């Protein structure tokens, strides 16, 4: 199809280049600079989509993001649902089709990149129309750091869609000069194709830059497709313009019906005639420009239908000179047509009464019901709106700190006014920043504005079609009509929020840009209350829809959350470790040998630690260096047990509770000096414990002279575990006397290895003789390999977290967060021995005395032994009373507790478990049942320490 509706010249398109695209499977052509909408119109195509509820044809009704009609699905180069044809820039190879209300997601991953950038500026100007450019120039000339964002492909705003002149030349020459001048200021960042979509407190504005969308398949892969700008501005100037508002009448959704200003934009910016024969229906003067311009471009303007009784004398005169018929005191009451409009039905209108209609033939029906300032961002940042009854619009109703609204967004109607107001806005922002404007801050000369005739506020034309408003569409995207609003009001609804929800008006893709104020007006009319009282629904971010992936940015996959690895990670990978996520850490869970499953590997690893020697990478354990004369005082207040009595050179296990008396973390404490301790925390609890300590030290006990620092990353830690660990340590550190007498359990020593400082500690999380080796991570691999080398004669075996768990569970050592769940006290864990009775107070102590803590049925940590010696109870299994018949009764079945840890034990040659059981310690020796996959498994309740309860092995 040839582009029959393209003008022969003009517009901002590159006529020398033709691009091919497909729409609904049909191959069409357009030019760079087109949008999909303008290219479709140039091909004579108005019908784009079908409506969501009634399946009615819908066309392009506006020229940018306020369009309620032209919803499309892009298929090539990559599927993207629910875009507006008016905002999709045309490129070669674009394939799209119209939508029936729902979009379609791609079923393949999106390989495009997305990112985010922060910007900190003095003045952010949103909108590069006349007001925004004037504001940006004023601020830039004064030396302010300025960012100017604009959603279109080029600057100019409303000037792109008109014939205005500035300084006696086409206004776009001034725009070009302004852009060039801004580019010369080093502190100015000017972004086009960048939509400010969210405004938040303290000048925080989010904007989406579409960097490569307009390039189609030619988009360079290395560039992010879209970028979120997180802009923190000391002052925000909103020059966001205004949206034209339609008037509602019967069958106003018929394709070919379009906002008047949009038709002007299609003509001047894109060189497209949206039709051949036009009727223009208006309630104010601005639509006359469309009539006159289209007429000048060769469109037969059949009539201007002006609802105002007296019309506009000066505009009538202009039309008469051009030979355009003006019908004042008349309205469009409906349309005719198959898919596209063929006739406008025009009737006299006086005193709110509609007379008999006549049909006027047309293929284009332009409508203007006035202008709604684009106050979305102002409202998002909690600016109050006020209703202006004269123009039927909501305007910014207050001054906000840090926000200035200028131009048509503030209700200024004419070009000269917008320029001056933009400058005023720029200067207002500067004044708040104590920056003086420059003397040469010159505005271009604009023609004197002509005072327009007063507009008429008309929300809807009374429906004379007999449909009672059922085809008078308020929200085209939601297929919501005047009849729907009337039903909502008739049902008893009074709040605009209720009406919105009843009718779903304003909830579609366009978020009610054209329908919102209309709804307020119509509801007010139906209820007989002022529009100010009805108000609007709340404007919420985003201003226009933003792709999920754009907001996700780089925070996906490995970057979704930081991945923490130890200094030995590469070694683990090479050794074939299977990893487990523990907090943000990657920890080896086990090291399977060829042919081994996890169970076999873990049994082997455990056996090595119990009978020979094993080695673990324990570097992820949290480590906190606590220093200061009052370090011991702080620890005494935070641990349940006494730490001040710990001797330098010794180690003590400790438990921390919350104020509510529940265990929050545990670990060992090394006393390094009178005024210095090294705390070991759980891997997952490290940050939490440091926060906890700092909170108490700073907020409650600022008198304590103590400081806490995380040193987790400063020490690699390797427990060397098992009866042969002494041989290994002795061999690697010949200068250290590793005998039990010289190096007793729960003590530490500093030594060196080839000049590298190393700390050794006799700490055991397995019950076996064990030495923990601490070294700077820089030397971790070397020391680890030295230990492996020395251990080779004893079959030293690296083991992972799973074997570690088995070994500790066999000894009844709980894992905080696995064997506890925030409802467990030290007493519940059988750790009364770790709760000081000497200290008058510590965090959590008072809560132990609450009534619920004395409940004999509190859950206590015990061991479980499946009687069949075979079943490994699933962790998390619930425990019930023994049922003689071996069957579960009907629910609800009382539960006694649950299995917290469960493993197969090499040492015990049977499976075992730890569990929290009501009154558990009183039930040792009882048999209870654990439901497992439909059967009841009998288990014996035992003490929690199943291996070496005497503690005979710790010294080897």
């Amino acid at each position, binding site marked *: 199809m040839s582009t029959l509706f393209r003008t022969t010249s003009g517009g901002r398109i590159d006529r020398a280049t033709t691009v091919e695209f497909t729409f609904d499977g049909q191959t069409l052509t357009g030019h760079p600079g087109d949008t999909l909408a303008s290219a479709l119109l140039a091909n004579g195509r108005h019908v784009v989509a079908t409506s969501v509820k009634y399946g009615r044809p819908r066309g392009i009704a506006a020229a940018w993001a306020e369009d309620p009609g032209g919803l499309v699905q892009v298929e090539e180069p990559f599927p993207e649902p629910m875009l507006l044809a008016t905002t999709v820039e045309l490129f070669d190879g674009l394939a799209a089709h119209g939508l029936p209300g729902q979009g379609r997601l791609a079923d393949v991953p999106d390989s495009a990149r997305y990112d985010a950038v922060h910007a900190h500026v003095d003045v952010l100007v949103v909108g590069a129309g006349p007001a925004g450019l004037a504001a940006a120039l004023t601020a830039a000339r004064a030396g302010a750091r300025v960012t100017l964002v604009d959603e279109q492909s080029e600057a100019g705003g409303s000037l792109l869609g008109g014939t205005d002149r500035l300084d006696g030349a086409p206004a776009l020459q001034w725009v070009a000069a302004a852009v060039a001048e801004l580019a010369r200021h080093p502190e100015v960042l000017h972004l086009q194709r960048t939509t400010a979509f969210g405004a938040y407190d303290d000048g925080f504005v989010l904007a989406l830059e579409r960097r490569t969308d307009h390039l189609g398949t030619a988009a360079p892969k290395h560039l992010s497709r879209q970028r979120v700008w997180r802009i923190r501005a000391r002052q925000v100037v909103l020059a966001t313009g205004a949206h034209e508002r339609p008037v509602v009448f019967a069958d106003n959704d018929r394709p070919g019906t379009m906002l008047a200003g949009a038709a002007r934009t299609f003509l001047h910016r894109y060189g497209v005639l949206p039709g051949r024969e036009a009727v223009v229906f208006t309630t104010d003067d601005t639509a006359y420009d469309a009539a006159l311009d289209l007429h000048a471009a060769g469109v037969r303007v059949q009539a201007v239908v002006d609802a105002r009784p007296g019309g506009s004398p000066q505009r009538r005169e202009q039309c008469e000179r051009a030979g355009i018929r003006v019908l004042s005191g008349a309205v469009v009451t409906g349309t005719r047509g198959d898919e596209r409009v063929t006739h406008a039905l025009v009737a006299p209108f006086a005193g709110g009464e509609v007379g008999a209609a006549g049909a006027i033939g047309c293929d284009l029906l332009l409508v203007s019901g006035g202008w709604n300032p684009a106050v979305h961002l102002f409202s998002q940042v909690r600016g109050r709106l006020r209703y202006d009854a004269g123009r039927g619009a909501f305007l910014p109703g207050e001054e906000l700190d840090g926000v200035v609204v200028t131009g048509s967004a503030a209700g200024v109607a004419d070009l000269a006014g917008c320029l001056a107001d933009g400058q005023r806005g720029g200067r207002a922002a500067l004044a708040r920043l104590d920056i003086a404007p420059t003397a040469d801050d010159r505005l271009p000369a604009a023609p004197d504005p002509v005072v327009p005739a007063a507009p008429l506020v008309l929300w809807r034309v009374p429906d004379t079609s007999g449909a009672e408003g*059922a085809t008078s569409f308020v929200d085209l995207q939601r297929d919501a009509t005047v009849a729907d609003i009337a039903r909502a009001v008739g*049902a008893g609804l009074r709040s605009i929020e209720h009406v919105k929800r009843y009718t779903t008006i304003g909830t579609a893709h366009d978020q009610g840009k054209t329908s919102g104020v209309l709804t307020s007006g119509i509801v007010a009319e139906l209820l007989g209350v002022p529009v100010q009282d009805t108000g609007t629904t709340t404007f919420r971010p985003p201003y226009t829809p933003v792709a999920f992936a754009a*907001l996700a940015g780089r925070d996906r*996959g490995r970057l*979704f959350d930081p991945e923490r690895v130890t200094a030995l990670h590469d070694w683990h990978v090479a050794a074939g470790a299977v990893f487990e996520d523990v907090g943000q850490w990657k920890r080896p869970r086990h090291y399977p040998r060829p042919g081994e499953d996890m169970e076999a590997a873990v049994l082997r690893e455990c056996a090595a630690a119990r009978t020979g020697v094993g080695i673990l990478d324990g570097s992820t354990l949290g480590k906190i260096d606590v220093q200061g004369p009052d370090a011991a005082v702080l620890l005494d207040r935070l641990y349940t047990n006494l730490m001040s009595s710990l001797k330098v050179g010794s180690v003590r296990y400790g438990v921390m509770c919350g104020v509510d008396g529940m265990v929050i973390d545990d670990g060992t404490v090394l006393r390094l000096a009178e005024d210095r301790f090294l705390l070991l925390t759980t891997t997952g609890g490290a940050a939490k414990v440091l926060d906890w300590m700092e909170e108490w030290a700073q907020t409650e006990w600022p008198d304590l002279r103590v400081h806490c620092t995380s040193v987790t990353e400063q020490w690699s830690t390797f427990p060397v575990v098992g009866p042969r660990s002494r041989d290994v340590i002795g061999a690697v550190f010949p200068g250290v006397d590793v005998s039990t007498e010289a190096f007793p359990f729960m003590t530490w020593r500093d030594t060196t290895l080839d000049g590298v400082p190393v700390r050794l500690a006799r700490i055991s999380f397995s019950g076996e003789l064990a030495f923990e080796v601490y070294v700077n991570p820089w030397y971790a691999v070397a020391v680890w390999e030295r230990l492996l080398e020395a251990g080779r004669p004893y079959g030293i075996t690296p083991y992972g977290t799973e074997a570690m768990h088995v070994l500790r569970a066999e000894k009844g050592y709980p894992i905080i*967060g696995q064997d506890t769940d925030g409802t467990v006290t030290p007493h519940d864990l059988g750790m009364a021995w770790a709760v000081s009775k000497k200290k008058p107070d510590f965090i959590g102590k008072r809560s132990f005395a609450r009534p619920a803590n004395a409940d004999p049925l509190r859950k206590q940590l015990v061991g479980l032994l499946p009687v069949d010696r075979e079943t490994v109870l699933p962790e998390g299994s619930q425990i019930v009373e023994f049922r003689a018949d071996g069957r579960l009764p009907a629910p609800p079945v009382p539960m006694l507790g649950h299995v917290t840890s469960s493993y197969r034990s090499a040492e015990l040659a049977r499976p075992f478990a730890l569990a929290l059981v009501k009154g558990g310690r009183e039930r040792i020796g009882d048999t209870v049942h654990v439901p497992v996959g439909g059967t009841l498994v009998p288990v014996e309740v035992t003490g929690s320490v199943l291996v070496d309860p005497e503690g005979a092995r710790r010294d080897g």
Partner: protein
Amino acid sequence: MTVQSPSTARTPRTTRTPGADLPDQPDSLWRSAEPRRSYDVVIVGGGGHGLATAHYLAKDHGITDVAVLEKGWLAGGNMARNTTIIRSNYLWDESSAIYEHALQLWEGLEEDLGYPILFSQRGVLNLAHTLQDVRDSVRRVEANRLNGVDAEWLEPDEVRKVCPVVNTSADIRYPVLGATYQPRAGIAKHDHVAWGFARRADQAGIDLVQDCEVTGFASDGDRVTGVHTTRGTIAAGTVALCAAGSTSVLTDMLGIRVPIQSHPLQALVSELLEPVHPTVVMSNAVHVYVSQAHKGELVMGAGVDSYNGYGQRGAFHVIERQMAAAVELFPVFARAHLLRTWAGIVDTSPDASPIVGRTPYENVWLNCGWGTGGFKATPGIGSALAHTIASGEPHPLVAPFSLDRFVSGALVDEHGAAAVAH
């Protein structure tokens, strides 16, 4: 002149996707009542809980001399702002009992209310991403089953069968290790639910009074005698507080301390999309909860904003984090668009369980602290609170949630296991 009515509109060239629209709302909803001077029962808060309580007072107990006072528009608070997930697969006996009671009522609610509430039992998956998640999940599934709540543990391949768009590959920061599944769980249309309750209550003669903010209470000893409002003073035989995030404002007037904190909680919605997501997916570790609502929009809840706030708005970085989690778990969502964000005010309690029951005033009942669980509890708490008001004794289902549990220490701690630590 002929008018083309919607039904005779020309056959569209593209057929519309079924289900992209909702059933019509009824032609009559409720009167906007003028408050009378006195009621047997005054319910403060015209959200889901207040309206449901009113409905069950009339239906189950024949008590209709009732006013529901709403400071703004009916059901305009959290009821209008939640993500409509309904489930009862809570860990503790006390919690699963009240939520399962609610779920059973949900199952008959459409009929009870005579209103299309669009209750869709499409199931909910709670994903596990760490070994500790798996343990906690199994623990909850087993507890649910013993309590008669439907629950299953699903391996990753089974998760994929229920919801094919979940990324169950290893190519993800926190791989999906499985999920709990409650088939009877689902979603409903929140406004329809609220309006269904409101309409029934109105039909029973209960006054639903909007734009009526409580400004104080009149009391005599340990009884409250009436409420002062922006629309006059109203005498009350019994008062029930159903004000969710605004509860503290009321209890401050009464001089009662309640351990709740009000936080912004944001949610968001995409444009309408063809069906891709057949169930409800929730994940704590990769913080997402998402369903595809009736018209085709993806509805998601974000994390709670950290600070106390009554502003019904939150910070955008919370939304960005939510989007990252969504795309991480559902790669096909990449080019779905964020259409709208909003926020409610959630009243969080120290143990993440509600606070329901007596107050120091003998005729004032408290109902708050539901946090993120309020919507799903709506019919359950409505019926239990109505019973409580009618009988003067806490219903057994709410008895464990009394205010004095914070003194005794007998909490119902639904925070579950802390981050695993070893």
